[in-house]
């Protein structure tokens, strides 16, 4: 199980509080989407790349983040070029790429724990809708822990079908898989309550 995208380091970006970084990213997103000045966008893009370097992140990591978007960005560029001209196409391409890289930069320089804490604090206003922030944090961490478990249950369901000579198609295996997961859920929640979870 991989453990997130955090890249340890000592840079100023690493040391900034997670809440500050998230607010900065939000402001950054608004600024980048509002401006259509190519020179300004280029300057912003370059400074994001400089920050990337300062944070001690590598170029292969940058490629990893941008690569899944390459075809989409190129298609968008081509489309905008035909419909609205070169500068509009460049504007779209630059703003999107810069935003994705800036967001990745924040993710790479913020520990998952800190991000979780910031998210929990950010969820506090929703308390009035019946959501408890610590419950939310618990659910997030628990879901991550359950992913390998769910995968294992899925594998067993597929193997059980294979043993019965039913073929390798994973979709029919989904039914016994989900039913078993829900049974395990009942056991898990009873164990949690027995350990004092959910007492208010």
């Amino acid at each position, binding site marked *: 199980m*991989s453990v*997130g*995208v*955090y890249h340890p380091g000592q840079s100023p970006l690493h040391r900034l509080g997670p809440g500050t970084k998230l607010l900065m*990213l939000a402001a950054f*997103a608004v600024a980048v*989407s509002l401006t259509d000045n190519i020179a300004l966008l280029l300057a912003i893009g370059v400074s994001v790349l400089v920050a990337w370097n300062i944070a001690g992140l590598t170029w292969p990591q940058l490629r990893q*983040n941008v690569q*899944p978007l390459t075809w*989409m960005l190129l298609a*968008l560029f081509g*489309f*905008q070029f035909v*419909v*609205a001209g070169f500068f*509009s196409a460049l*504007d*779209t391409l630059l703003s*999107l790429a810069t*935003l*994705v*890289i800036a*967001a*990745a930069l*924040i*993710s790479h320089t*913020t520990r*998952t724990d800190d*991000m*979780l804490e910031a*998210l929990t604090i950010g969820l506090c206003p929703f308390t009035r809708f019946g959501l408890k922030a610590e*419950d*939310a944090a618990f*659910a*997030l961490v*628990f*879901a*991550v822990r*359950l*992913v390998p478990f*769910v*995968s294992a249950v*899925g594998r067993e369901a597929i193997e059980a079908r294979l043993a019965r000579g039913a073929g390798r198609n994973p*979709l029919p295996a*989904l*039914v016994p898989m*989900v*039913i078993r*997961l*829900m*049974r395990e*859920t009942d056991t*898990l*929640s*009873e164990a949690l*309550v027995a350990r004092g*979870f*959910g*007492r*208010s």
Partner: protein
Amino acid sequence: MSLIDQTLNVKGLVRCAMFAALIAALGLLPPIPVPVIPVPITAQTLGVMLAGAVLGPKRGVLAVIIFLGVVLLGFPLLSGGRGGLGVFFGPSAGFLFGWIAGAYVIGLLGASSLPRLIIACGLGGIVAVYLVGVPWMAAVSDMSLSQALLTSMVFLPGDAVKAILAAITARAIQRGYPAIMT
């Protein structure tokens, strides 16, 4: 609060977390190429539709939000191994937010008959998701709404197949484990 109430409350939360993990695990499956359809379909949205159909509107939405929260934290669990804040800024990020609306609509319309489940999955898993995803794509990539809609059409056949599969699967789960409806 009595012990039974507590257990039911915790059970709801754990079910949502379990479904969030299911959505994540389905994203780990390689995309399945389907003949005639231009883009290979990923199983992840199947999990989103199932969450609404099996858990109902409130918990279905919560399961999707937990999953998106885990992705936001930086776990690369979105199909294709993507994760972190970056995925919420791309041109197709609106479809991720659309999942929340989709799970809600499916849960709201969801019933215990196959035809109604198919309608629910179609309206929630396609119409509601596109209602959020398409305007987002139009806004982020400076397209008009109709152009964005046209671009999204490549995903429509795959999503239609998934809506039907999700309905069939959800019905089978309801039959196999009736306690799920409580």
